[in-house]
């Protein structure tokens, strides 16, 4: 390794004869003043050096160096180098991770993050708690974004017109040349096509470019726009879910698919937390009107199915009703008169609105961004009448043109920044011809021509493809949903010679500064205190306090709202609802294995997309599965979709809208609006990386796209929903990858639900079902707290005795120190089913933290997914239908299931090799090295949380698993095993033949224990303080549904959660004594609503099946003789 040279090199002959650059008019004109100044060895006054103080000397020297730069006409930019340590720097300890603040760039908002780096190699993304609304939570997309950094398919170099690789300098020259040539026509031939961004620095550069080239065109495009409301109201809507007690969501999936979902979920969940009957009555009641079954619909207390093309009209109806009921009858009537063609249950609207109006000041109506502008205006009026908990703020205005402009008037020079418009562009806009028409095309892409449609198209017309940096490699900035200014700072020097967006834009803005300097300038302009110290604090904290958007009153008048006309829908004129998928988003994350394999929370499909249809439509098409005998005799509910030999088999169908047809498998989805077809974007890539491409193990080498593309149906005017669709079945049937076959809990007491009334009747309502009848598993210890039980009641199942740490050894030196011997902390977890929304953040966070491999579609089809935590999804419709009917309008619950760390673990006693044993802090540990892989533990685990490495998932790549030692090792052609760089060095990477499962993030526990011991020094207080230790799933959970900590400390948050009356353990009648317990779900039903049930449907089903699912009081449970009588109230069957 030669040492890096920092000195400016001596100018070579060619360089001095090349194009000349100048920095001032004086230099260009070679004025005598300039010449003197440049030729002077010292600046004027330098000879006074003998008389100056040290400070002045340094000042002068600094100035002279600055001027010296002028003299050597800038032939090279200064570079900031990230160097390996020559000397060990302070505060960096090998093996101890360092965290840096940054943010995850989104379409309209950034998500503040902390990134864990090991020796400056980023390995894990976490939420930035400095941003209060965000906390430590993060979305699955943010979690998974770190895998994209190590995407082996990412562009690793830039390529020019003839396919020749371009050096960094050549790319810079090219950009400067383009900028210079655009000067001649004031940028009339120049156009930029970019994705929207919240970065103020980018906005500043765009403004500078527009100032430099008045005729330049700046086009922004994203397939899933989130700005309709803002455009309609002239202000951005910031609903405050924490303050709202009644929320009506009109097709707005604020818990699922939005920028700001993390913040919204946190706020909503906080308002949903309840332990007593009083709290349960006060918690938020959520009404949802929607067409597809989203997470928000899943969380709803009352859910109305309606087609999206009717929801704008419904919004007006709801708003009219709000106005009418809150004393503005004439306005209400006027608004109602504008609505036609929509049918709805009047009582639903009336009672829902009555509930909202009754909670005036704490009620809130929110609407999906895809609804019409008039719908947003109507909703604004409703919120105004309700005095809703909502803020209106000014979002930065965007002067961006629409993509249609680019197609109608092709540019001479086209610069495409990010995105993938060749794939995700609207079907009615011929972007390809615009690219072809351009003389010069420059594309900044994360994937090169081999793995990206746009890059491939640009390459085919002889354009330049510049490799893009990952956000974890670049300097930038952004704003959160509420406008808080956050940095994007690099964690690592770019892995490849790549360019960030700012680096590409800067030359056009006439700037030669590095992005770092640009961000600093923006910071200086935005921050009140722009000192170095403040800047450093901003980078360290990751948020700029009080930098949110300013409040701005919306501009809405009732009169400008035009008439609503809902289209007529029927089985022959359906509606398509187009949504970004939970896997690939709009296609941006298509090459991310973690996301591809994280199942869709509702359909549980992964690796591909499906056409979601309603059970009613399925009955019409006759695609429902044939019932088995066990369904007919009412012992098991019929599967919703056809499952043959454990594989989901779906009929392929064609969807036609306005003469355009796409084809995909049909998936019957309970809770869909009858006439709506749900379609997910982001699949069916034609030029894509290895994750977005289907690998067929059986037909090695033959590959097809993963899923199907919905973009042919996306029109620039109607990108979210389109009526007038037809669905036609074909004869073909294809297997569809999914992770949960069965939908019904079959009346078992696994997920337990209640409501305020239940809590009032019997606080112990969660102790029901078979658990209520089982003998007391703790014997006389039953009355103890979980913490006491953990210490005193024999548990164990390790063949090796643990030393009793609470007793001093009988050795002379310890005499008098007995009090220093404390019982060890006992770890436990509590999951609140009431706040869990099923968002998958925990699944991805766990995968990231624990080096869990991605197994690929083929292996998931075989039922071998490896994720340590899963979200079980159960539907209930409460109908006594003898197992035959498919629920049309079900309630849903999610249950996060990972290893329960049973105190008497069934897995431990059956392992013949002693590979899974109990540790002295109550963890059920897995010694990978000792495991021989009998799989007996997995069989004996009632929770089915153990995962087996059936094949070499970590060593080999999907598609080569079955080639054994003959197959290539992972990523044979790549310079480095890139994805391996993501691995957490604190966690073993498991080989084939080994069992694995949730460890309660034992590496984090150990780290916390070491910290506690270091801090304790000589004192005996080595306990990990509550709250200082978070496990990965808990940390990521936006709902705060997971608590983890020491259960022997009665004041720890987990102990308090476990002390809740809603707390119960799953399947505890087996005497497993799980350390992970659940808090029963609460529903907050409005009894006046149509279809409201006295008891949650899951309990109704339980009663129907077992005849006795009522809460039992404490009679049969541990606390014998407690006050409650035998179930004071049994629900009617």
């Amino acid at each position, binding site marked *: 390794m030669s040492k890096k040279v920092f000195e400016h090199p001596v100018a070579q002959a060619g360089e001095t004869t090349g194009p000349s650059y100048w920095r001032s008019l004086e230099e260009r004109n070679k004025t005598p003043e300039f010449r003197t100044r440049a030729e002077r060895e010292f600046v004027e006054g330098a000879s006074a050096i003998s008389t100056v103080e040290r400070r002045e000397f340094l000042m002068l020297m600094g100035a002279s160096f600055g001027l010296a730069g002028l003299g050597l006409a800038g032939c090279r930019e200064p570079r900031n180098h990230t160097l390996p340590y020559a000397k060990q720097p302070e505060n960096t300890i090998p093996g101890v991770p360092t965290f840096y603040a940054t943010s995850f760039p989104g379409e309209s908002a950034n998500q503040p993050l902390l990134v864990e780096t090991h020796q400056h190699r980023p390995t894990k993304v976490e939420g930035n708690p400095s941003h209060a609304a965000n906390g430590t939570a993060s979305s699955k997309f943010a979690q998974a974004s770190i895998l994209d950094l190590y995407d082996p398919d990412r562009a690793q170099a830039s390529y020019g017109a003839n396919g020749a690789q371009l050096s960094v300098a050549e790319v810079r020259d090219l950009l400067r040349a383009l900028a210079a040539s655009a000067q001649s026509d004031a940028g009339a031939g120049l156009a930029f096509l970019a994705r929207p961004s919240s970065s103020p620095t980018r906005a500043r550069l765009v403004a500078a470019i527009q100032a430099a080239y008045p005729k330049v065109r700046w086009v922004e495009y994203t397939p899933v726009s989130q700005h309709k409301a803002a455009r309609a109201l002239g202000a951005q809507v910031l609903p405050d879910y924490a303050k709202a007690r009644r929320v009506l969501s009109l097709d707005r999936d604020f818990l699922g698919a939005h920028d700001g979902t993390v913040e919204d979920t946190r706020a909503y969940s906080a308002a949903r937390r309840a332990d007593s009957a009083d709290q349960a009555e006060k918690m938020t009641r959520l009404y949802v009107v929607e067409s597809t079954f989203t997470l928000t619909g899943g969380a709803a207390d009352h859910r109305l199915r309606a087609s999206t093309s009717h929801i704008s009209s419904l919004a007006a109806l709801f708003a009219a009703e709000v106005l009418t009921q809150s004393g503005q009858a004439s306005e209400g009537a006027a608004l109602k008169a504008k609505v036609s063609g929509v049918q709805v249950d009047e009582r639903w609207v009336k009672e829902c609105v009555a509930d909202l109006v009754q909670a005036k000041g704490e009620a809130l109506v929110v609407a999906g961004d895809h609804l019409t502008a008039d719908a947003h205006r109507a909703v604004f009026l409703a919120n105004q009448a309700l005095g809703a908990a909502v803020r209106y703020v000014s979002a930065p205005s965007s002067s961006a043109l629409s993509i249609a402009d680019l197609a109608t008037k092709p540019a001479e020079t086209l610069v495409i920044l990010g995105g993938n418009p060749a794939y995700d562009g609207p079907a009615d806009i011929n972007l390809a011809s615009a690219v072809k028409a351009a003389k010069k095309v420059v594309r900044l892409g994360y994937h090169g021509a081999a793995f990206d449609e746009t890059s491939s198209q640009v390459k085919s017309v002889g354009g330049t493809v510049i490799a893009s940096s990952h956000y974890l490699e670049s300097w930038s900035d952004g704003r959160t949903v509420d406008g808080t200014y956050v940095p994007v700072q690099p964690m690592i020097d770019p892995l490849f010679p790549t360019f960030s967006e700012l680096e590409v834009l800067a030359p056009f803005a006439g700037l030669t500064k590095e992005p770092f300097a640009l961000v600093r300038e923006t910071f200086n302009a935005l921050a009140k205190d722009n000192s170095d110290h403040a800047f450093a604090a901003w980078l360290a904290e990751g948020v700029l306090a009080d930098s949110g958007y300013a409040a701005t009153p919306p501009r809405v008048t009732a009169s400008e709202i035009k008439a609503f006309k809902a289209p007529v829908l029927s089985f022959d004129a359906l509606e398509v609802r187009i949504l970004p998928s939970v896997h690939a988003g709009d296609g941006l994350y298509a090459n991310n294995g973690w996301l591809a394999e994280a199942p869709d929370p509702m359909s549980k499909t992964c690796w591909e997309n499906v056409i979601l249809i309603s059970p009613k439509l399925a009955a019409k098409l006759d695609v429902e599965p044939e019932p*088995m*005998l*066990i369904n007919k005799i009412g*012992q098991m509910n019929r599967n919703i979709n056809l*499952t043959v*030999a*454990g*594989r989901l088999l779906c009929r392929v169908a064609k969807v036609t809208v306005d003469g355009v047809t796409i084809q995909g498998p049909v998936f019957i989805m309970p809770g869909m609006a009858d006439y709506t077809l749900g379609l997910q974007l982001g699949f069916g890539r034609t030029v894509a990386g290895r994750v977005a491409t289907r690998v067929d193990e059986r037909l090695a080498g033959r590959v097809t796209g993963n899923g199907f593309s919905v973009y042919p149906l996306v029109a620039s005017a109607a990108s979210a929903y389109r009526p007038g669709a037809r669905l036609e079945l074909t004869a073909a049937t294809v297997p569809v990858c999914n992770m*949960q*076959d*069965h*939908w*019904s809990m*079959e*009346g*078992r007491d*696994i997920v337990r639900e209640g409501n305020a009334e239940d809590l009032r009747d019997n606080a112990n309502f969660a102790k029901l079902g078979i658990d209520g*009848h089982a003998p007391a598993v703790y014997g006389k210890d039953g009355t103890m707290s979980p913490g006491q039980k953990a210490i005193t009641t024999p548990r164990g199942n390790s*063949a090796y005795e643990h030393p009793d740490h609470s007793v001093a050894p009988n050795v002379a030196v310890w005499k008098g120190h007995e009090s220093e011997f404390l019982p060890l902390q006992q770890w436990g977890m509590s999951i609140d089913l009431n706040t869990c929304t099923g968002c998958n953040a925990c699944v991805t966070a766990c995968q990231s933290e624990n080096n869990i491999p991605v197994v690929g579609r083929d*292996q998931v089809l*075989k*039922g071998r997914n490896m994720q340590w935590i*899963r979200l079980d*999804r*159960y539907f209930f419709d409460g109908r006594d239908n003898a197992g035959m009917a498919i629920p049309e309008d079900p309630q849903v619950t999610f249950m996060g299931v990972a290893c329960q760390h049973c105190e008497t673990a*069934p897995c431990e*006693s*059956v*392992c*013949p*090799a*002693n590979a899974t044993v109990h540790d002295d802090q109550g963890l059920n540990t897995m010694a990978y090295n*000792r*495991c*021989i*892989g*009998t*799989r*007996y533990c997995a*069989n*004996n685990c*009632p*929770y*089915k949380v153990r995962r*087996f*490495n*059936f*094949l*070499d998932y970590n060593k080999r790549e999907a598609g080569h*698993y*079955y*080639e*054994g*030692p003959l197959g290539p090792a992972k990523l044979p052609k790549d310079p480095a095993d890139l994805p391996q760089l993501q691995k957490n060095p604190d966690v073993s990477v498991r080989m*084939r*033949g080994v*069992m694995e499962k949730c460890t309660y993030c034992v590496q984090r526990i150990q780290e916390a224990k070491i910290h506690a011991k270091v801090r304790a020094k000589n004192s005996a207080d080595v306990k990990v303080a509550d709250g200082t230790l978070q496990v990965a799933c808990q940390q990521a959970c936006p709902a705060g549904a997971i608590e983890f900590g020491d259960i022997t400390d009665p004041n720890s948050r987990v102990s308090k959660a476990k002390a809740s009356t809603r707390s119960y353990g799953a*399947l505890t009648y*087996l005497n497993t004594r799980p350390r992970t317990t659940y808090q029963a779900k609460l529903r907050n039903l409005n009894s006046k609503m149509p279809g409201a049930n006295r008891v949650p449907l899951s309990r109704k089903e339980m009663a129907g*099946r077992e005849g006795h699912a009522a809460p039992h009081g404490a009679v049969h449970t541990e606390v014998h003789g407690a006050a409650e009588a035998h179930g004071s109230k049994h629900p009617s069957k």
Partner: protein
Amino acid sequence: MAHAHDSSQERPAILDKVRPAELPRAKLILNDRSFHWITDKVCGIVEEPTPTWWKVLFVAALFIASFTFVGMAYLVSTGTGTWGLRSPVGWGWAIVNFVFWVGIGHAGTLISAILCLLRQKWRTSINRAAEAMTIFAVMCAGLFPLFHVGRVWFAWWLFPIPNQNGIWPQFRSPLEWDVFAVSTYFTVSTLFWYMGMIPDLGAIRDRAKTWWRKAFYSLLAMGWRGGNRQWSNFEMAYLLLAGLSTPLVLSVHTIVSFDFAVSNVPGWHTTIFPPYFVAGAIFSGFAMVLTLMLPLRAIYRLHDVINQYHIDNMCKIILATGSMVGYAYATEFFIAAYSGNAYEKFAFINRAFGQYSWAYWIMVSCNVITPQLFWFKKVRANHSLVWIICLFVNVGMWFERFVITVTSLANDYLPSSWGYYSPTIVDIFTFFGTFGFFSVLFLLFIRFLPLLPMAELKMVSPQADPHAH
């Protein structure tokens, strides 16, 4: 015996009055065959030139056996994923095959030990082949639990070998008990089989004409001279081993059943398993004995030593144990319903009517219904039919293990985790190959070792008891 003799003198008067018909004991060896005939017959099988059918079968068996070894080489080199296993079905065909083969390996020791202690003399005609079958079946069985583990190269950790890690196997695991149960059973069965063969090996040695045959059988006969003291020691040792083997017959399948019964999976966690498994094992073992002996009897014309009486007896045992197994199936349902436990109830309803009901009804029809035909003497006399029924029993017993292992795992506690297991071609070929492996061993046995126990046959022949009648 003196007592018996005395009492017979005081014959009750009533007997003279009613004059009961003489019930002749069934003859164990027909046609009054002489000792010499028996020696010639049994030694002749070993001494005749290798028959063509044997060569053809041997090559075919070797070829089939190679399926197992190729399958296992692929398995070890690539991973357990080459089989159809998945979550939640961690045990599939491998464990099914293991229990199936171990079950088959029950008849031999039962015949040689328990029937010996119960003085069932008819056992002598079939015990040698049945014991050989036992040993070979246990060898086939042993392959599966060994190779079904994810890292077979560490399987030696299952043995309590002192090591520097200070880690011992986990003695509470039924799989660990299996290691001891099966290995003990195999060792004792092999000893028993070999020891019983020593006098016959001596006879073959004495008749050997070539030097290498002499050397080979001399080695095996361990210096057997047939002296009185040797016979006396032999018989005492035989009795002791019979006594030692008897509990093993019951224990090995009891412990195999513990693999299931000790777990908490609904459908596995049942106290009825030990007797039910033992009955099932004897059931399948006898079916396999008949499956093998009927063709051998035809090929080597052993009709005089393996006669209808033997076949009748075995058919009746199959009928009895088959009915026991059927009763156990019914009991499982009753207990599940009686338990009031929804998980248990579902497990059994699901077996009969759920996604694997096809396997359940194959099991019931083969194991419970088919053997009922043995109530009829005509059926028992029709040896082709007996052979076919025995094949059905073998199939049914394989399915019984499949039903128990797979259906219980596929649908247990949490419906979210339910799945469906189906085997891959590697699973199927590996199992298929074990029949070849078994056949290779069995063919070698009939070619080189005495198929029938000559000495014991002679002991039960009328000539051995000159004082009779």
